[in-house]
């Protein structure tokens, strides 16, 4: 997309400039002391802080509700102004520009994939440091492990997860019944799902499978096969990743199984933004759809048939396979004044608190990041009434917390994703063989990772 190219290019241009800055300044949180509650207590008047985010649509309205509540609770002491600054890539480009002109926001809600970038530019105080210095606020142990491990790099918690989504296998139960597949039929493994999709197609003529052409689902197929998407160790254990693993082992197997569905006509093409996959599913023209848990309320109002969200199918050993979370997290600026930093930490604690997460998740369809939310009786009632919402929570709770499911951390993720999806679309359309496409994607990713490394000045 033209807009994305512009902002990715702008970010790249800036990154080379920042590389010099970040390696010479020593204001990163790991060397200086994180401020404690006294910094805010001793501050005179109202401490104003800024929050930038890329949360669109009605979810953005729900975030604003939380911000308004926080402002009410802290009247006279803290005031938060929150601004939408463009979705994902634009948000990062704007953030990078603001770093140069020293007008970075106090708190930044950055998307999941930005984790590598945000860590590498060293402009944020790690959440672990703030939690240690402010024992009265958020306790990191309260966070759901699958969510916190995504935002921990080298064992140090960098950011606080705010909204968490998980990929699901959405099933049109009516279509399956028409094809003679009973509700009790197992659909836990990729093989079972693929064969069911083929059955629906041959028995009813309706397409069996679709998904948005988003590399996120390729990453899920990889992690659900027990493989690290990027090697070594998804970049989580100290060494920056040097390549991706989609063209070998069980990951390649899984991708091949899906590509097979496309080239044989069982699957119908989604589109990169997910609009086509969404419309096709709600129109009842496909049996299985990979999609984020976030579409729950959309499907509820638009799909007029019996549907269900099932856990993402696995293709590997249970102990090391599972899906990767999506969503975004809260990053605290290391260049803001100490009073603003503590105020920002209080905001983050509020947004990740059990009550806020309950309110936010119920209204949006994201999954609560705070373990304590699940203990509340109103949340239990809500989950009992919405089978799919319960399925989301179960999937996130039951995901093993291993490097495979922690997802790949590198600032080159956006480039890798674009490269991958271009190759895979060609493979799904039959323009090149899947092997060719995967090898090309892996080699493009290798180049992208090398370029990112050199931009950082390592």
């Amino acid at each position, binding site marked *: 997309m033209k807009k994305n190219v512009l902002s990715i290019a702008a970010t790249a241009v800036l990154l080379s400039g920042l590389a010099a800055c970040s390696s010479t300044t020593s204001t990163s949180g790991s060397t200086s002391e994180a401020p404690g509650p006294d910094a805010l207590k001793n501050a005179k008047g109202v401490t104003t802080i800024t929050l930038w985010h890329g949360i669109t649509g009605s979810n953005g309205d729900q975030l604003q509700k939380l911000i308004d509540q926080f402002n009410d609770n802290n009247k006279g002491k803290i005031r938060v102004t929150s601004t939408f600054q463009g979705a994902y890539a634009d948000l990062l480009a704007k953030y990078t520009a603001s770093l140069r002109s020293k007008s970075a926001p106090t708190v930044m809600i950055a998307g999941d994939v930005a984790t590598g970038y945000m860590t590498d530019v060293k402009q944020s105080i790690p959440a672990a440091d703030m939690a240690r210095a402010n024992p009265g606020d958020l306790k990191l142990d309260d966070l759901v492990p699958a969510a916190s491990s995504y935002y921990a790099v080298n064992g140090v918690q960098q950011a606080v997860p705010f909204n968490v989504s998980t990929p699901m296998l959405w099933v049109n139960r009516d279509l399956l019944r028409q094809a003679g597949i009973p509700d009790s039929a197992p659909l836990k493994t990729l093989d079972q799902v693929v064969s069911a999709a083929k059955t629906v197609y041959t028995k009813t003529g309706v397409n069996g499978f679709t998904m948005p052409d988003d590399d996120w689902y390729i990453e899920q197929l990889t992690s659900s096969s027990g493989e690290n998407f990027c090697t070594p160790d998804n970049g989580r254990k100290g060494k920056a990743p040097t390549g991706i693993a989609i063209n070998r082992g069980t990951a390649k197997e899984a991708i091949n199984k899906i590509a097979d569905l496309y080239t044989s006509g069982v699957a119908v093409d989604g589109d990169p933004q997910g609009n086509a996959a969404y*419309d096709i599913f709600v129109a009842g023209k496909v049996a299985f759809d990979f999609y984020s848990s976030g579409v729950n309320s959309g499907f509820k109002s638009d799909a007029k048939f019996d549907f269900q969200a099932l856990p993402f199918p696995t293709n590997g050993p249970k102990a090391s396979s599972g899906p990767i979370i999506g969503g975004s997290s809260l990053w605290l600026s290391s260049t803001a004044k100490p009073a603003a930093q503590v105020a920002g930490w209080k905001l983050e604690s509020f947004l990740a608190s059990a009550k806020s997460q309950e309110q936010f998740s119920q209204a949006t369809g994201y999954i609560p990041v705070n373990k304590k939310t699940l203990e509340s009786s109103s949340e239990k009632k809500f989950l009992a009434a919405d089978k799919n919402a319960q399925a989301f929570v179960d999937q996130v709770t039951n995901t093993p917390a291993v490097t495979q499911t922690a997802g790949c951390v590198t600032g080159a993720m956006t480039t890798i994703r674009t490269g991958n999806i271009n190759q895979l679309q060609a493979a799904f359309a039959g323009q090149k063989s899947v092997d060719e496409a995967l090898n090309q994607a892996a080699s493009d990713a290798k180049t992208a990772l090398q370029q990112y490394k050199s931009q950082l000045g390592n």
Partner: protein
Amino acid sequence: MSAPNTSIRRKTRAPRPGTVVRFIVVIAIAAIVFLPVYVSFLSAFMPNGEIVRNGIWPNVTRFTMTNFIKAATSTPLPQQYLVSIAVVTLQTIAQMITGALAAYALVFPRWRGRGMAFILVLITLAIPGESIVIPNYELVSQIGLRNTILGVVIPYLAAGYPIFLLRQAFAAIPSEIWEASRLDGAGDLRALFAIIMPACRPQVTTAIIWSALAAWNGYFWPLLITDTDAARTVQVGIAQLPSSDATNPAVVFAGVVLVVIPTMVLVIAAQRFLVNGLARGVLR
């Protein structure tokens, strides 16, 4: 006025086969080009999945305006429309004035370095927008114009392309016209705005269309330089509609329709003007 009963019957000739073929080809191409626009417009008026369910012929009973209401209320759209109109007006007028003045200087008066200056203007066309967005941001921030309409238009008060278009147009005018006007006692400005510009109406119209469209479609720069919803253009406002996690395709289409309609109106209106100007220019 009684119609004379003379049998001057219009001879209806059968259309030539060449014309028929041309019509069919043009209509086929137009249909292909127009199909995505049609689907987008239709989807905006329908609930999600309707076109997949029932094909591209609309089921009139399913028409709904809820998508437009949702799109229009997700951001302060009326305010943003006004901002967009202000940006378009300021940018277009400024680019026309600076473009006309520059083109005039590059064509009529002879001066040393005239050719070099034109080359420098052409070089700016080769500079990618991405590389100058950040320096512009820093400069405009330092001046203190962040989050203002002026801040949005300032880097674009002059542009290389209109200068190029107008320069080419002015160069094509026979120099006698300019010399005659000067002999009549017109100063440079009068010659430019009273004689030269009207003689190049099609090219001026093209330049206006280009400037206006570029200003209306600007997204990244207005996003970068503004911080509050109320100061933003409609393109930035509409960008808040799509969401990867909780998408509502029909609302996104509605937003697209709201943003595209003014540009369609502009192009359709300007085209008439364009064609008129062309015809007038030929029949001199």
